[in-house]
């Protein structure tokens, strides 16, 4: 485990940079994490992040298929929002654990 300062707050992160405690999350922390990947978060991004946080808190297994059926965006849109990692980056910015899904 490591510590990292995001949006002026020191939080615990995993080796891969995922928040250890989802409750540390804020929109500002998400924006800081996204910046590291060169992504500027928009309202659409936040909609996806809030959806992932809600599903993760409910204990659902996440997949891009599920996000694609959420009504927020389709799978193509998800790739455009989070290039190179539609599920792993969105989960990272959402402050939830790295998804253990193959789809």
């Amino acid at each position, binding site marked *: 485990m490591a510590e990292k300062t995001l949006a002026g707050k020191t939080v615990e992160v995993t080796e891969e940079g995922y928040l250890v405690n989802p409750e540390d999350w804020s929109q500002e922390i998400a924006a800081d994490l996204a910046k590291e990947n060169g992504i500027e978060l928009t309202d659409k991004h936040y909609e996806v992040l809030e959806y992932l946080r809600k599903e993760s808190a409910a204990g659902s297994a996440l997949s891009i*298929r599920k996000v694609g059926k959420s009504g927020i965006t389709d799978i193509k849109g998800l790739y455009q929002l989070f290039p190179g990692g539609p599920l792993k980056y969105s989960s990272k910015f959402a402050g939830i654990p790295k998804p253990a899904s193959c789809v």
Partner: protein
Amino acid sequence: MTEVKETPLKKVMIIVAKASIEDVYAGLIMANGAVMEGIEAKLFFTFFGLDAITKKQMNKLHTGVVGNPGMRMPGGLPFPTLLGVIPGVEAGVSAMMKKQMDDLDVPPVDEFLDMIAAGGGEVYACKMAADMFKLTMDDFSEHVKAIITVGDLYAMSGGEGSQIIFT
């Protein structure tokens, strides 16, 4: 001292040559997993693997229940080969496999191809096999970019960090 330099995987070419559920899904899952990780993926379907991109067949794939030593009854007992020859058994087992995959959010083949294409993955059909089975672009999924030769396949397989995977 030799310096060890790690080259990250940048591109995978995945070849699918068989039509059983497990052979086709192995290729689809690997291709989709690649694009989800930001790795370029190209799928090349050949021989019986063409069923997976043939509109009429793609959602009717079966798994072999005869001569398949990995096949078990629910509960774990071996699945007798003789049972597999009874009409309807293979269809039943195949339907069950699809149901179990759907529970894990693994989509049917047509939707899986949509997902891979949405991520920028490319799908190709083998020219020789298409000629042999008398299939044309009209028979194939809209996601099939072209019918190509093995030479074309190798031509697009170059570059550092590229791998060809035969499932």
